[in-house]
């Protein structure tokens, strides 16, 4: 692993996110969220803002990395990357880094807007940690999901199914359809729930209990495991399939 080369790759990825208008799309999404949230009253905002940040860090991360990989696939550029001195680890890592940076950027936009407009009180450090950790996890997870997607619409549908399947248990618990106490232990295994805890931690009234620390450890370790045991081993096979070989 060479840091200087990873940096070259990250810069290349960011340049392409810009050239392929993905930056523009994420600014647009941030604006849409912003306008929507601007018109709700402050009590609703207090619950809605963390949710928006969560969706941005999770679903949008999966979506962006998926789109980037589809672009790449359509141009067969992966095969060229394979014949440069860059290692597989460098290639994967740079893509995850670039997409995390990119997604962070849209979250920051939303946050800045609300700090300025609505006087929202945040712990900047914790919200930053929450968003970075959540975004990184879902980006690497999205990377792995993209290995199995045949086409773009199929990918979108699969992300929806996946997100609903994981969000519904959380919702059922929130609205007290499921009341069993043990269910909260089941919930923490859900990465969306973990992300919600971490991002929630950046807001004023969050109560820090074991769930927060568990979620932090869970997503950090999860990121490393997904990268090391799922994404990296399959990278070469995936790249070759994409390159039309």
């Amino acid at each position: 692993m060479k840091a200087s080369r990873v940096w070259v790759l990250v810069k290349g990825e960011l340049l392409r996110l810009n050239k392929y208008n993905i930056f523009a799309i994420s600014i647009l999404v941030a604006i849409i969220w912003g306008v929507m949230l601007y018109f709700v009253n402050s009590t609703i905002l207090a619950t809605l803002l963390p949710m928006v940040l969560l969706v941005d860090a999770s679903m949008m991360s999966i979506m962006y990395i998926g789109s980037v990989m589809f672009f790449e696939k359509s141009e067969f550029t992966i095969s060229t990357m394979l014949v440069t001195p860059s290692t597989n680890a460098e290639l994967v890592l740079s893509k995850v880094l670039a997409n995390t940076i990119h997604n962070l950027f849209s979250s920051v936009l939303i946050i800045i807007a609300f700090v300025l407009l609505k006087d929202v009180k945040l712990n900047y450090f914790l919200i930053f940690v929450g968003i970075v950790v959540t975004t990184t996890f879902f980006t690497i997870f999205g990377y792995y999901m993209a290995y199995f997607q045949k086409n773009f619409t199929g990918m979108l549908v699969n992300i929806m199914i996946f997100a609903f399947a994981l969000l519904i248990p959380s919702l059922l618990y929130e609205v007290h359809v499921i009341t069993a106490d043990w269910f909260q232990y089941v919930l923490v295994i859900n990465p969306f729930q973990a992300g919600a805890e971490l991002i929630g931690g950046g807001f004023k009234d969050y109560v820090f209990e074991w769930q927060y620390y568990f979620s932090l450890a869970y997503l950090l370790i999860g990121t490393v495991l997904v990268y090391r045991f799922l994404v990296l081993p399959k990278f070469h096979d995936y790249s070759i399939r994409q390159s039309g070989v």
Partner: protein
Amino acid sequence: MYKVEDLRFKYPKNKDDVIKGISFEIKEGEIFGFLGPSGAGKSTTQKILIKILEDYRGKISYSGKDVSEFGNDFYEDIGVSFEMPIHFSKMTAMENINFFLKLYKRNADVETLMKRVGLWESKDKMVGEFSKGMKIRLNIVRALLNEPKMLFLDEPTNGIDPANAKILKDLVKEFRDAGGTVFITSHIMSDIDQLCDRVAFIVDGEIKEIDSPRNLKIRYGKRELRVEYKENGKTITREFPMDNIGKNEEFLTLLQTKDIETIHSGETTLEDIFIKVTGVGLRDESE
């Protein structure tokens, strides 16, 4: 440079091998042509040599060392042009080049290269707006960015006009003359006939013949002289065996007495030889 012994390869989804036990050597400083019809296994072989396809059987060594022992710095020495031109279409030629350039330790002089292939004027144009010939030329520039020792070119002349093909061939020759080694594939013989120091004929995953084009022509070519001359306003063609031509009275008299129009040695083209050796035509019917 490269030594390949009993190479066999099967794509995961296929039942049979597409490379069926081929052996050859690419010598340092030569242009080695890999010629064969569509589907023969040329691209597959190139992809194995550049370590993109991994599950092969047989032995491949590069610079005396098994290729599997090389790490990624292997690619500091290798330049590859794939069959398809591959670039980021929404970036300019120069943005593409600059991105790849920074991934290597050695950097070629891009301006000279780009001027050489006639792309310098278009350097700030989106690659998506390039013609096919321009993309292929950019492909070659990309392959030469790291001043490689070994160059792989998969069908570089396919689909470009003769003028550009000539530029490419001259570039490849210069590369060889400066000490570089080249592996080049084609299914159009005449394209790289004069370019290659040695050629291999590959058909259906098997090598049928390897030699220099000159030797092949001597071995398989018709050793004949064809003379065309004018007589009574008509052109007449006569053929004479090359052996002992200087003592062939009939031939000598003809030279002295007739109004000669052309004299050719009966050189068979590489394409004729290919068909003779392999029993297979080179070109696709679709082309």
